[in-house]
């Protein structure tokens, strides 16, 4: 009996490997897995450092008012500066036709910055400015790495499997959130050095496979020069002109600004909304948010399949419709039950947005301009990320 069950498991495992191998042009199952693990890795950083520990770390040292103010400034500076240079960073990678060296550089910088914050002496307020500078560098690098990561999707997927590969990445990314949330809970590390060190080590560990397994086609042999980076600034207006030549691209980027603004803001305000408007306790809110993250994981796989069946644009439109329904339910009745239903719709849609919109962006971009246009794509998302949540701190009664 045990042997028969083992054989069935082995068959299933082989079928899974075959299916994974079928998703990628190289036919190697390790490639989409390695690529998706990078999503797992960077989400660990995003949750542990940006969403949780850094804000508390600064508040512990500067007090609630100054702490939140300076954390907000550091966060907005890193994201805002990155938004400004995103198209330039993308254009530079287009010159060489390769993304991986840039991805490696910025990933390393994120990990080093995060680890360095963890190594600063505990409770020493004199190091707060240094901590904020390190966070700004780490967060800038994290955002920059994302541009190159998204732009490697065509390398690891076939045109017809992009939806599924993107969906697997998003789902695995949410798993990263769950894993680090549980680790922080178990170790009770909060905003201590341990959280930063855990985030840095796990980011390095799970980011490693993409650099080992994903092989880009040979580039043009271009080597990075500081002069070229400066010259790329002059290319910014050319990038916008180039984008105008692609039918619908600028319209899509403007649309992206509008729909990612509520998405980015809801992520930030959901727990405040649950406690203040619905009247839930903090513990119940945390449990619910964890449950909704699981919904997002499962839905991301589903949305990936939908992208392949009906295309990224129609999928994205359905996702946004589901968000509209979720928002109507959440706003119309302020009850626990309706909030859970709205949360499931919004949580599932959250995975859907990230799964489908990068595939749609890829569909709209000419191959030789992918890096450049993904820079603009990042600009639209990051501008909304800064303008969305930064003003909401004023609306939180506890701040």
């Amino acid at each position, binding site marked *: 009996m045990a042997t028969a069950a083992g054989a069935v498991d082995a068959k299933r495992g082989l079928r899974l490997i075959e299916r994974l191998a079928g998703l990628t*042009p190289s036919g190697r199952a390790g490639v989409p897995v390695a690529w998706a693990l990078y999503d797992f890795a960077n989400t660990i950083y995003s949750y542990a450092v940006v969403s949780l520990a850094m804000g508390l770390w600064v508040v512990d040292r500067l007090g609630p008012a100054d702490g939140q103010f300076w954390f907000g400034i550091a966060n907005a500076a890193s994201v805002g500066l990155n938004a400004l240079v995103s198209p330039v960073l993308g254009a530079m990678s287009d010159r060489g036709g390769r993304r991986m060296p840039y991805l490696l550089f910025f990933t390393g910088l994120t990990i080093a910055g995060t680890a360095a914050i963890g190594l600063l002496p505990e409770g020493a307020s004199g190091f707060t400015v240094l901590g904020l500078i390190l966070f700004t560098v780490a967060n800038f690098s994290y955002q920059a790495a994302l541009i190159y990561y998204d732009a490697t999707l*065509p390398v690891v997927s*076939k*045109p*017809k499997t992009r939806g599924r590969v993107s969906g697997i990445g998003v789902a695995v990314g949410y798993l990263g959130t769950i894993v680090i949330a549980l680790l922080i809970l178990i170790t009770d590390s909060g905003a201590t050095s341990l959280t930063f060190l855990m985030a840095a080590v796990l980011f390095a560990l799970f980011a490693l496979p993409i650099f080992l397994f994903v092989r880009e086609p040979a580039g043009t042999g271009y080597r990075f020069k500081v002069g070229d980076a400066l010259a790329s600034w002059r290319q910014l207006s050319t990038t916008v002109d180039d984008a105008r030549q692609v*039918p*619908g691209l600028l*319209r*899509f980027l*403007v*649309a*992206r*600004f*509008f*729909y990612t*603004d*509520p998405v980015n*803001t*809801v992520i930030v*305000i959901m727990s405040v*909304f649950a406690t*203040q*408007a619905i009247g839930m306790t903090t513990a119940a809110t945390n449990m619910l948010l964890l449950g909704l993250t699981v919904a997002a994981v499962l839905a991301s796989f589903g949305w990936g399949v939908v992208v392949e069946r009906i*295309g990224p*644009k*129609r999928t*994205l*439109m359905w996702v*946004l*419709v589901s*968000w*509209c329904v979720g*928002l*109507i339910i*959440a*706003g*119309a009745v*302020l009850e626990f039950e309706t909030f859970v239903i709205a949360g499931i719709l919004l949580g599932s849609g959250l995975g859907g947005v990230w799964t489908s919109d990068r595939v749609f962006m*890829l*569909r*709209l*971009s*000419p*191959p030789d301009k*992918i890096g450049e246009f993904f820079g603009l794509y990042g600009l639209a998302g990051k501008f909304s990320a800064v*303008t*969305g949540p*930064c*003003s*909401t*701190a*004023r*609306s939180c*009664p506890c701040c």
Partner: protein
Amino acid sequence: MLYGTIVSVLLNAGWGKGAYQVGILSFLVLMLIGLALLRGVPDRTSEAENEGGITPPPEHLMPAQDMPSEARF
């Protein structure tokens, strides 16, 4: 920005939970604008999508024009 300003102003005006409801409404408005703009974006297949598609073989490997089309067995 819209959400932050709306909720902040309405909470100060004593709207209580209603402030959050109006805030959520602002998300809905932004989402509908995004949806309306997205509708007008052409859903086309780019060159990047075709990269992995079937490409014709080089000219010297192309079958001759007069080659019989029947299977060779």
